[in-house]
């Protein structure tokens, strides 16, 4: 199992934390994992992205992802920038609340998640990232949902621990949108 994920969106959408949670969950399961952020000028208000590589069987070779098996696009610029890089048969998770165009690729698995709408229903826009993460984890099964939930208190700073139940709820809502369809990659 080798999952190479690019998570991209606007600064403030929580894409770094999504990657951090995913990486932490994988580490808890004893898997090999790396997380690397973009740290360029885009961090100052534009788009941000991070790459997570999870490997069950061997140590992570390159932490820099150029051919993602999954792209999580939280906004339209992210879809525009990374869609063509996805491997054939890869997974595209789009935040359907914000992305106003159809994906061009026809050779991939596409999961549309109205993340902002669901987060809005839950009363806090900031958990849109957890909705998407829930959907992704449910679809790919690259980590156990419980590992992600268990990582929340390690990843979120203590002054946000009161938001853990809300994050769990958002994650569960997202997970409810997707059925398991593991990676076709070796």
């Amino acid at each position, binding site marked *: 199992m080798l999952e190479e994920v690019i998570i991209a969106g606007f600064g403030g959408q929580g894409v770094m*934390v999504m990657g951090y949670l995913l*990486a932490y969950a994988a580490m808890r399961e004893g898997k090999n994992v790396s*997380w690397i952020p973009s740290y360029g000028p885009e961090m100052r208000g534009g788009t941000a992205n991070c790459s997570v590589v999870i490997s069950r069987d061997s140590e992570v*070779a390159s932490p820099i992802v150029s*051919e993602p098996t999954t792209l999580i696009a939280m906004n339209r610029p992210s879809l525009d920038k990374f869609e063509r890089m996805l491997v054939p048969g890869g997974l595209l998770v789009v935040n359907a609340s914000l992305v106003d165009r159809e994906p061009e690729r026809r050779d991939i698995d596409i999961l549309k998640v109205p993340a902002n709408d669901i987060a809005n229903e839950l009363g806090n826009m900031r958990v849109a990232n957890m909705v998407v993460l829930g959907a992704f984890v449910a679809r790919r099964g690259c980590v156990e949902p419980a590992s992600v939930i268990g990582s929340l208190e*390690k990843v979120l*700073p203590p002054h946000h621990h009161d938001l853990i139940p809300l994050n769990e709820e958002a994650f569960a809502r997202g997970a409810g949108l997707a059925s398991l369809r593991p990676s076709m990659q070796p």
Partner: protein
Amino acid sequence: MAGGLANKASTDKVLMKGNEAIAEAAIRGGCRFFFGYPITPQNEIPEYMSRRLPEVGGVYLQAESEVAAINMVYGAAAAGARVMTSSSSPGISLKQEGLSYIAACELPCVVVNMMRGGPGLGGIQPSQSDYFQATKGGGHGDYHLIVFGPASVQEAADITCEAFSIADYYRNPVMILGDGALGQMMEPVEFRPVEEPELPPKTWATTGARGRRPNIITSLELEPALLEELNRRLAAKYEKIKRELVRFDTYKLEDAHWAIVAYGMMARVARAAVDKARARGIRAGLFRPISLFPFPYDSLARVAEQVRAFLTVEMSMGQMVEDVKLAVLGKRPVHFYGRTGGVVPTAQEILQALERIIQNEAPQNANGAWQKEGDAGAEGFWATGGFN
């Protein structure tokens, strides 16, 4: 985002950025003084040190400049302290004068360079274009730093921790040569118990001369014969370092016909390229220098007996490739592929570079027209069944 040691998981591993892991490892390696000046992409090191050093009774100080910081390191090292500074390429350039003085005075310290794209102020994305500066002296005079190029967060932590003993043992500055990607990436890391080797007491340190003759630490020596003697002593030390400190790693090199040579973060991408090549039936392998000074010349020379050609891959326009050529001494072709300015070559690009080499090196027809000047061992190769 909450980083650091608070994040203990069910295993003994923690998820940390390379920069943070280096800082924590330094403290575990006995570092109690840190002097620095901010620059991307290494700011997590001073940030972490500013928080942690006071907890262990150490001193963190943000200097007014890189020049000031390295000279504070000079002073603390002269007083016998375990001391570190960190910066990134342009800032490391500013430290070169101080490093020359520290090397001349044979003072132990640890310097971290998380390289970014140059020359000049350059950019903030990862690069390996300070290899010459790090391994060939950097400042003025006949001196060397001991230089390590770790390729993972774990290795960066292990080497940084050990670097303080190595610096003390050889009385020589040690440089951890990473890049922006290594500093920014998070990986699981485990901090193992530190085993301190037995080291000679620092009788030379300027600790106050009560009851003994004063220790004088200076790099000024106006008597040519005495200055030459210092240079001979330094050269003898570097020879000892070359015998004792060479480190490297290999991946699938045992039966390889094509050797990729890469260090640090680039070596990880190269490892992925080796797997891609193997999947296509190309017998590629990886040679990864860990110590960059001393460079593993002899081991690489032995690889030349076995492979058909070398491909050196760097995030530069070609620097370490010169040491690879020195090691191979013309016995085999040494090719180069590099990207720079903050662009990181992909595994696919490396594979394509390798395939181009194989195409050019391979026989164009049954007469075997591939053999070129310098391919002294080519017959041996064909005798063992050709490539692949």
